[in-house]
């Protein structure tokens, strides 16, 4: 360690943190200063707000069909009307409402699958990382098998055995994601296990359980947070892909994938049916990725701006 260049650490921060108190201050200050995180969280917040409070934002029922108003163009184009701002889809349902309700489904799906995968993966990672030995071999082989199995075949088989409801899909996606988390947690465990503060804790008499949960878990949370923001984005796209190929959630439930799958065939005549869900995905993922990407700086000190 180079004694000379740790000027930045103690001199810089010692000065201005005396008036801020506790952990929250650090988060709060960082969020404001970093533009990326600010805009990222702003966009994500707006999207989540629209999706959660959908009934307030639009008055239409996403499933109500009105055949006569089929494929009306968006408001600003000729033939469009103020009632349907973004026009209607092939069954005459309001596109904006379906996108918002579809968003609710996709985001919720992304969130639940990531959470499940996070829990399972972290549990696996903690056990294999900390105890190692025979148990580690078995669990790591399970991870290999999981990664070895071709995802597309698994999806098609499972989606034809069980009816593709919300929970089946989120179980499926968490099946896809959990090995990633297990590996990351295991690698952190291996490096942290022999860290000095763990030795000190052991010499104080702390039990293995306490060391894992209270000590090492804290270091896992930041990178888990980072990975899960990225994975939510992947799941939203994968769900849209499944819907596109006709495997995803059954109609008439609106999801971004389903809406786009319908719109695919009208691409030349009713371009808006496929374009606007794509734009919706782009905006949401842009917010999530911007937030996740800049969060990385907060998590990974090396990337953090030095001065």
């Amino acid at each position: 360690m180079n004694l000379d260049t740790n000027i930045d650490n103690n001199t810089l921060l010692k000065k201005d943190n005396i008036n801020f108190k506790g952990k929250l201050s650090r988060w709060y200050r960082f969020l404001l200063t970093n533009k990326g995180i600010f805009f990222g969280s702003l966009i994500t917040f707006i999207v989540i707000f629209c999706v959660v409070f959908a009934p307030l934002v639009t008055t239409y029922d996403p499933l109500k069909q009105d055949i006569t108003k089929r494929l009306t163009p968006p408001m600003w184009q000729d033939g469009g009307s103020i009632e349907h701002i973004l026009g209607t889809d092939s069954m005459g349902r309001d596109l904006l409402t379906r996108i918002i309700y579809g968003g609710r489904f996709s985001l919720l799906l992304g969130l639940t699958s990531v959470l499940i995968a996070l829990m399972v993966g972290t549990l696996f990672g903690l056990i294999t990382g900390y105890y190692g030995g025979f148990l580690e071999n078995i669990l790591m082989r399970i991870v290999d098998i999981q990664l070895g199995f071709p995802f597309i075949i698994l999806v098609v088989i499972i989606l034809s055995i069980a009816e593709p409801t919300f929970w089946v899909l989120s179980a499926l996606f968490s099946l896809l994601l959990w090995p990633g988390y297990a590996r990351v947690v295991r690698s952190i465990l291996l490096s942290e296990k022999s860290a000095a503060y763990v030795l000190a804790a052991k010499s104080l008499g702390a039990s293995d359980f306490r060391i894992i949960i209270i000590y090492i878990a804290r270091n896992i949370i930041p990178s888990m947070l980072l990975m899960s923001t990225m994975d939510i984005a992947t799941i939203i796209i994968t769900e849209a892909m499944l819907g596109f190929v006709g495997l995803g959630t059954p109609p008439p439930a609106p999801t971004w994938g389903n809406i786009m799958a319908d719109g695919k065939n009208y691409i030349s005549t009713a371009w808006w049916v496929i374009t606007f869900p794509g734009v919706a995905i782009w905006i949401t993922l842009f917010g999530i990725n911007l937030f996740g990407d800049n969060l990385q700086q907060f998590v990974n000190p090396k990337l953090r701006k030095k001065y």
Partner: protein
Amino acid sequence: MKNMRTTIGSFIVLVFCLSLVLSSVVWAAPKGELKIGIAQDLVGNWDPTQHTVVTMLQVEPTYFDFLVKVNIDGDLEPMLATSWENIDPLTWEFKIRESVKFHNGSLLTSADVKSAIEYASSAKNPSSAWLPGEIKGKIVDDYTIRLITDKPAASLLYSLSMIPITNKEWVNNPEKFAETPNGTGPFKFVKFERDTLHLEANMDYWQGPPNLEKVQFQYIIDPSARLYLVKTGQIQIAGRLLSEQIPIIESDPNVVLEKNPIVEQMWLWFKCKKSPFKDNPTLRRAFAYAIDRAGITKYIMYEQAKESNSLLVPGVFGYAPASNMPSYNVEKAKELLAQAGYPNGQGLPPLKLMVAVGAWPKCKEYGEYIVENLQDIGIPIELFTVEIGRLGAICFDEEPEDYDLQITGWNPTGLEPDLFLRALFYSKPGRLSNIDVPEIDQTLDKELNILDLAKREQVIQNETIPTIVDYMPGLPLFQTVELKAVRQEVKGFKLLPSTVYDLHGVYLAD
């Protein structure tokens, strides 16, 4: 009277064909390659008896010939059989055309016909579904043969138009048969590269060589992909397109839109052996009246469907609009619902309408629309979507727990009425609706045994169809209209109601 007209009609058509044949002989040697994009992919096994897949039946006429042929007006026409007569209710005698060569050069004789027909009709092979039962062949001489059915079958002639005549060596050697077909058709088999079938002109075809040098059938899964390939000229004909794509086709000068009503009909089937539909035709009729079939055709299917008002489709022998076919009438539906014991839906268990996603176009959309129509009159019903594999497995079950009604299409690619009526409504196989009513079975047996075409037509129209419609085991939603995009340079391409490809007369203008 009608019968006389058909024979004269067929005579004129014959002359026309001959002239065409003559003119094609004069025509220059075959040139150019025609590439056709098809919607379902082909099975790798070329033995026609081993499958009942629609796409194969459509493609086989390009490299196989049949005893009899159904022309554009839906009438029978001699092909490999120059003439035929009915000796007694069980036997038919056919005169075989002479000097017809197989692709491998061997001459066509009645022995080939005997082996082909017997092989096709044996219960072991799937193709037996098209025939009324086991058929025995008795060779009179090299060019005459007698076919004996085990029970009188008026539908024999039309069914024979679907059984290709194959070489007897091939029939006794199924392995070889699976590799390459050996027929007498206008084109010869070259190779099959997984998704593309390559054929080339059969120079010594008995009607003269075809105008095209090469033909290619390529399987393209996505309708928009098919459309763009035909627009960029990588393929010349793209089948099974969607009505939404019509504006794109019409806006493109070098692609022509062909609309062709085909023998396929989409049905809404009631599970007649499962409560609440069991022994309750009034309830079934109540459902029938509640569904806005006109709306589906007009707003959803748009150009891709035609109103259907009978159990058969125009072009099929014995077709006529059924008088008692229900139309969209909400009050009558509610009235019948109350009569059936469920006043505006009370007492009905929660029902499920099964629909297969990805098989028939827009099945999902009109499935949703029907569910909404039924919900409007108080029926507790939900949409239950499955993928085609699963539907195929459970669509015939008599007491399925997963669903109560289903939307399934029926396309026998033949014009014989029994391929519709007997196959769907006879109690024994009792396929999609599992209807089991003796009265329906009697009328079906009655019309099957009438050998005289005119009398058989009269019985079908006035007795068989009305009785079945009364019992309402299934409601025909609409007749499919296939949309094809054909490039300008393709000339002489005819769309047959049975959707088979007749490419003999087609040529490419440069």
